[in-house]
């Protein structure tokens, strides 16, 4: 059975054997150098070998190495000493000496023994040499001395010889065998050889003669060796020197013999000399090694820096304080096309685009004068072949040791791509904006272009209908008018969709009387429904506040669309609009469900129906008419209001479309209801100026005005209009009303109006604008110019009549109304004219207010919690009741209402609810 012996045991065996052999040889050398009666060597080299061996090998081998070496020493010592005990013990002491040093060094430095390091060298000197030899000498002296009288003398011989042995040999061996030493081996071996040879020669020269005491001349030689060739060379030279000195001295030759005749003294002197040599050379070698190490690190880091700078693609630069380049990395050449050699020393501004030089100067100034540490800027530079590119730079100021400005350092990066991308983006955005502007202009123009002839068609149709016609003629004219109506509706729808899509439609936020709206819308569709035999009903959840935040106009549009559809697609049964309040979490919603008992919509068409131009059936348009835009617009409007429009339907049973919008209560808004019922416009008798550039329109509107009993003068544009007004005043027949078309050549309606009013603000005639466009900003422009009202084309006869009545009618200053409409949003004008013609009397309205207020207060109280908002609302309602009750013969009620209002303001919080409830109870009784 052959067990394979692992390599480490082989290694250990080899190490131990080699060491022992070397120790033996060294011992022989040492003995050979012995002199003196004690037969002690001047210099004992054996232990150094053991020490180095232990330092080089792993600890597990130490036992074997020490063991073999002990045997070797034992054998050796046996040739000198005759007592086995003595030889055994002496050998052991030597082993101990080496072990002490090895153990300490191993503990402190591990296996990393670099003799050129200061700390390692110090530890070798202190522990492996001094302390170790001290211990061993103290142990050995008694063994060597035959009797105690000579112990000190023996010690004095033993200690230096062992000390020197370690000090001379150990560094040399360590320097030769450790890795770090490899660095020094790179120095030409010939140089080392030369130096050592030189040292040897010098030593021979010095010690080979006995005439002159020139042994100290050795020192410069050795020191020189240390400077030139580092630790290995130094220790080798010192070793050679020592050996030579010993050799000669032992033979009685050399300057040491001049010192004394006594052997012991000579030996001592020699040892001191050698020690001195060691102490003067080795530290120098260590220091120099340290410096070389630092230099190497520096060189390495310098290399690394160079590598990095060469690799990055940004330019790294430095300039001196005049702005001349002092450093540029390789990237400079790629970025600018100039070579670095050509550029260094030249001023920075040669490469910068002339227009951008100031930017750089400013930036550097900022760095110098303010606290800013970093300046960044973008400038153009000119490459070697002439192309201009953009760069982005970051720059810092440099200061010298006195803190004075010494130049700048920074980086720069080619930024051209980003800059180009940025410019493209800007260009693209401008192009997009321009496209939008063009689209808006197109919208506005198209609106005008279409409405103008529409005006003609509708106007004349209405005039015709007002004249004597046969039945057949009347019917035909009605058809013309209704065709024109349909066309107008389509136009409005298309414009709405366009506006919504290009984001030009705004949803207003104002107070809306929701009950009123429902009433109005259902009223509008009722005639059509009744003609088909359908019932129209609506209901309103009492929890819904009277006034809600929303866009009244658009809500009306949606409701009319839904109701219109319901009526259109129902043959029999009913159409209902039910408004309810719904709480979802912390939000309140208003749901208006328009339901009918009509033909219904198939399940798969229900979603598509909300898309443009889709109808439920492909022939629906033919059967029922319509453009299919209404629902699409309604849904968009609903979404823009923050709500939804949904449908449920069953074929043959009916359809329900529900509009859901967020519900927020609003402050009541008092839009002017005309306090007089609007009479049929007749015989107003006003003197009117009509400024209109298109002859069709002049004819139509002029005819309408004459029908109203007005006398009409015409103007063709703004200038004409101003002139006409002036003339009229001079002639003593001022106009009662000026109708001003806004789109006129030369001078437009807004400017003309402004001019007319400016002439005589107090007695200028009221100016009413006629226009096809009703964009919000046009309304604002009119208001700003002092225009009192706006009439949209196409002009309807009734609308015109009301308008004339209002602004130029009897009661010289419909001035009262003038003032009252100044504040009104002009957009409401349109819907006002559609409102119910008959207004309730004041008393009725007061009764309504009383009823609604009581209802509302009751609802608020019933819901339980009375927070700030609720109390505020109740107080406001009570206030209104209190203020007006007295005028309508309801003084007592008014007093109670006043009490309630006061109670809310004055009572403490805990009593408040109770007091309010009790007061309200009395109030509702008295109502």
């Amino acid at each position: 059975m052959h067990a394979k012996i692992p390599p480490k045991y082989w290694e250990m065996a080899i190490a131990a054997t080699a060491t022992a052999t070397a120790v033996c040889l060294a011992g022989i050398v040492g003995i050979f150098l012995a002199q003196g009666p004690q037969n002690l060597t001047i210099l004992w080299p054996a232990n150094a070998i053991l020490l180095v061996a232990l330092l080089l090998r792993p600890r597990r081998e130490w036992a074997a190495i020490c063991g073999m070496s002990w045997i070797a020493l034992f054998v050796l010592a046996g040739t000198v000493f005759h007592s086995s005990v003595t030889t055994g013990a002496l050998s052991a002491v030597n082993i101990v000496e080496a072990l002490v040093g090895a153990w300490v060094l191993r503990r402190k430095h591990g296996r990393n023994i670099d003799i050129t390091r200061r700390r390692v060298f110090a530890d070798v000197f202190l522990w492996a040499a001094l302390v170790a030899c001290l211990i061993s000498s103290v142990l050995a002296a008694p063994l060597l001395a035959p009797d105690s009288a000579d112990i000190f003398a023996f010690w004095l011989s033993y200690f230096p010889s062992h000390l020197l042995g370690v000090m001379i040999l150990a560094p040399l061996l360590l320097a030769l065998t450790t890795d770090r030493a490899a660095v020094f081996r790179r120095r030409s071996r010939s140089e080392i050889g030369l130096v050592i040879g030189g040292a040897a020669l010098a030593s021979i020269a010095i010690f080979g003669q006995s005439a002159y005491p020139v042994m100290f001349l050795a020192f410069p030689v050795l020191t020189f060796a240390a400077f030139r060739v580092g630790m290995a060379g130094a220790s080798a030279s010192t070793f050679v020197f020592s050996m030579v000195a010993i050799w000669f001295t032992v033979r009685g030759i050399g300057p040491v013999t001049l010192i004394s005749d006594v052997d012991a003294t000579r030996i001592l002197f020699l040892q001191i000399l050698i020690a001195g040599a060691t102490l003067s050379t080795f530290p120098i070698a260590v220091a120099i090694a340290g410096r070389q190490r630092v230099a190497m690190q520096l060189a390495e880091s310098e290399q690394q820096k160079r590598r990095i700078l060469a690799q990055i693609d940004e330019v790294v630069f430095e300039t001196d304080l005049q702005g001349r380049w002092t450093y540029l990395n390789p990237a400079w050449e790629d970025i600018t096309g100039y070579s670095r050699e050509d550029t260094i020393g030249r001023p920075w501004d040669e490469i910068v685009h002339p227009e951008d030089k100031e930017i750089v100067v400013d930036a550097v100034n900022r760095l110098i004068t303010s606290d800013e540490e970093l300046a960044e800027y973008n400038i153009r530079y000119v490459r070697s072949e002439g192309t201009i590119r953009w760069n982005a730079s970051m720059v810092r100021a440099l200061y010298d040791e006195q803190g004075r400005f010494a130049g700048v350092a920074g980086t720069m990066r080619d930024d051209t791509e980003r800059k180009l991308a940025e410019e493209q983006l800007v260009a693209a955005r401008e192009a997009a904006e321009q496209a939008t502007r063009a689209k808006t202009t197109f919208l506005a123009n198209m609106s005008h272009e279409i409405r103008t002839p529409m005006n003609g068609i509708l106007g004349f149709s209405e005039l015709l209908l007002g004249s004597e016609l046969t039945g057949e003629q009347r019917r035909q004219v009605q058809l013309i008018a209704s065709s024109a109506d349909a066309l107008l509706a389509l136009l409005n729808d298309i414009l709405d969709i366009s506006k919504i899509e290009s984001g030009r439609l705004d949803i207003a936020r104002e107070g809306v009387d929701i009950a009123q709206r429902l009433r109005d819308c259902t009223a509008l569709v009722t005639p059509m429904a009744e003609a088909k035999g359908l019932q129209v009903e609506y209901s309103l959840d009492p929890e819904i506040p009277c006034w809600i935040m929303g866009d009244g106009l658009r809500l009306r549009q949606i409701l009319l669309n839904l109701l219109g559809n319901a009526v259109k697609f129902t043959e029999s049964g009913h159409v209902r609009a039910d408004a309810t309040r719904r709480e979802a979490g912390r939000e309140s919603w208003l749901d208006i469900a328009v339901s009918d008992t009509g033909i219904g919509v198939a399940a798969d068409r229900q979603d598509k129906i909300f898309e443009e131009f889709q109808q439920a059936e492909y022939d629906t348009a033919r059967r029922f008419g319509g453009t299919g835009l209404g629902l699409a617009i309604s849904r968009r409007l609903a979404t823009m209001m923050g709500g939804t429009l949904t449908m449920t339907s069953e074929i043959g049973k009916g359809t329900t479309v529900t509009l859901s919008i967020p519900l927020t209560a609003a402050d009541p808004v008092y839009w002017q209801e005309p306090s007089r019922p609007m009479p049929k416009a007749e015989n107003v008798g006003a003197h009117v100026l009509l400024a209109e550039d298109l002859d069709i329109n002049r004819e139509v509107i002029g005819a309408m005005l004459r029908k109203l009993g007005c006398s009409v003068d015409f103007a063709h544009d703004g200038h004409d209009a101003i002139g006409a007004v002036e003339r009229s005043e001079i002639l003593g027949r001022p106009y009662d009303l000026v109708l001003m078309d806004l789109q006129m050549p030369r001078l437009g309606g807004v400017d003309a109006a402004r001019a007319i009013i400016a002439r005589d603000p107090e007695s200028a005639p009221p100016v009413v604008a006629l226009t096809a466009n009703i964009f919000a900003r046009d309304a604002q422009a009119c208001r700003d110019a002092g225009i009192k009202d706006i009439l949209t084309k196409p002009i309807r006869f009734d609308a015109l009549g009301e308008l004339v009545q209002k602004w130029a009618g009897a009661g010289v200053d419909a001035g009262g109304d003038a003032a009252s409409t100044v504040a009104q949003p002009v957009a409401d004008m349109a819907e006002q004219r559609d409102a119910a013609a008959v207004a309730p009397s004041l008393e009725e309205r007061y009764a309504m207010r009383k009823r609604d207020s009581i209802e509302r207060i009751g609802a608020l109280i019933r819901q339980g919690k009375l927070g700030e908002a609720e109390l505020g609302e109740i107080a406001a309602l009570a206030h209104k009741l209190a203020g007006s009750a007295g005028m309508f013969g309801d003084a007592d009620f008014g007093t109670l209402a006043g009490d309630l209002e006061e109670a809310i303001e004055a009572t403490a919080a805990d009593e408040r609810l109770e007091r309010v409830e009790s007061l309200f109870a009395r109030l509702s009784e008295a109502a």
Partner: protein
Amino acid sequence: MARIVYAEDDELIAEHVRETLSEAGYVVGIVNDGISALQAIKIKHPDLVILDAEMPGLPGPEVLRKMRTDPKLFDIPVLMLTARRSKGDEDLAKYAGANEYLRKPYDPDQLVAVVNSLVPDAPKRRAFG
């Protein structure tokens, strides 16, 4: 016919007053807030201005003060209507330079009488400031 600008935010009261005064032969223009009131007054230069003391935006006393500091307007007589209960309004009215004040709710006859007294006279000037 004498012209009156009347600023009142409660529309029922406004209408009622207008009816009352129209029957007495006045032409009444109604505005709902202080800012419109000032605009109307500047344009129309009425013979009398009636202001509700509490209105949204610019309340009555503020309108009054602006009128009194405008050379073109300061000699127009002003009647201030104050709410039922607050004494403070009365003081404000006097301080701001109202020619007369009435408490709501007011007796229509009394209202007409006061208006009559204010309109044809040369206005009684009050120190303003």
